[in-house]
Structures are given as structure tokens and as C-alpha cells.
């Protein structure tokens, strides 16, 4: 099974600077224009599948707003 990952974005820290979105090798991140953080920024989110958990986004994030996880992809109904 392909290695896969995901991220958690802290809206407390994220300032929507867009640096991670451009750094992500998989191009799966973008600003969530539908949301505003309490400080008035659009936070990032994963807008597509394909996150590998490579943590490049976390390496460039100035706010330490990201937690990166890696795990195996499984299907489940919710």
C-alpha cells in the first residue's frame, strides 16, 4: 500500500502566508478561502489527495502551524 500522510493546521498559528502551498511537492495544499481565522487570515487546508507526509510544508512554515502525520491509507465508511 502506498505510504500516505496528512496534515493538521492550527488556525491559531496559521497566517495564510501561502509559503507551504508553494513548497508542497504534491501541490495538495491551498488557502481555504471559505474560512477566516480569528486574526482574519484564510488558513491552509489540503484540497486534494496525495499528501505523502513529507513534511516539506512544515519545514517552510514560519509559524510552526502544521503537524504532519504519516500512515497507511485505508478505506472506511463514516
Amino acid at each position, binding site marked *: 500500500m502506498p505510504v500516505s500522510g496528512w496534515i493538521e493546521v492550527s488556525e491559531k498559528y496559521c497566517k495564510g502566508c501561502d509559503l507551504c502551498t508553494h513548497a508542497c511537492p504534491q501541490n495538495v495544499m491551498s488557502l481555504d478561502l471559505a474560512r477566516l481565522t480569528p486574526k*482574519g487570515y484564510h488558513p491552509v487546508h489540503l484540497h486534494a489527495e496525495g499528501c505523502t507526509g513529507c513534511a516539506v510544508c512544515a519545514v517552510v512554515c514560519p509559524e510552526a502551524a502544521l503537524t504532519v502525520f504519516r500512515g497507511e491509507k485505508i478505506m472506511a465508511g463514516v
Partner: protein
Amino acid sequence: MQTEIIVAGFGGQGVLFAGQVLAYAAMDHGLHVTWIPSYGPEMRGGTANCTVIIADEEIGAPLVKHPKAVIALNRPSLDKYEPLVTAGGLLLVNASLIDRPVAREDVQAVYVPANEIAERLGDKRLTNMVMVGALLGATGVLEMNAVQESLKAHLPAKHHRLLPANYQALEEGAQIARETLAQAA
């Protein structure tokens, strides 16, 4: 007659410039005016506000405890200034970022989804002008014309292409204020 206006919000929301536009307009039209900024506990990304006093006689203190009108661009600003506005005064609320209604009953509240309007007009940075427009719509302290003229006079030439959008922002804000007051009346 003396009108005290406080504009308050996050740094970066154009708080100081909004006040300056009002001050310039008053100055250019022969009124006495003072504009004075103050910053919150943080310089970058923190809160900022400014007090504009417009009067037809010499102005003493440039700061007041109980302003006639407050433009609250974010929640902390509303929390801070709601109790301070004079009875019968005006609270202009940026409804895009402020998720609670005004509690006081003895003041006039106007809710403006300023961020949404600004983004719709193509530039988030117009938020402040929407709110200024609302102030003009809600009070007679200055003419819309006067403000537009001084905006033109004091905006650096390189930003002149943004003038139409600014005018539009002012108008939309004013429109909302007029509507609100009409309903209230």
C-alpha cells in the same frame, strides 16, 4: 460642535489610513481637526487605533474617553469601545470578522460585511474604506464628496488607478448605513 471618531482594528486593516482620510477631508475643508494614532500591545499584527476629532473651534485634548462614533474592524475593538461610545452615539461594526451583535441599546449600531464587500470589489485592503463609507452614510460629519476629493489629493499617484474601487467601497458602505438607519427610523 465637535465630533470624536475612533477607528480600531488589527494592524494591517488600514485603521490609521482610514482616520487620515477623514482628517485630510476635514482639514481640506477648513475644519479644525486632530488625528492621533495609538498602538496596542503589538506593533506588527497587533491592534491599532486612531482618534479623529473634527470641530469648528480650536481643539484641546486630542483624545477622549467617550467618542461619538467608533469604527470597529475586529472583535477586540468592539469589546473595548462598545462601553465607551457616548449615549446616542454610533457603532460601526465590521460584521465580516465580528460575530456578535451590539449589546447596548442606547447607541446606534450599523453592521457592515466589510471584508466580503472589499474582496468582492477585488481588494481586501478596501475594507477600511467600506467602513469609512458607512460612517459617512450614518452621520453628516463630512460630505461624501469631500472625502473622495481628499482621497484623490492624498493617495500617492501610483495608487490612483485604485481610486474608482475606493469610491465604490465608500459608496457601498454608505449605502448599507443609510439602509440600516432607514430601517431603524
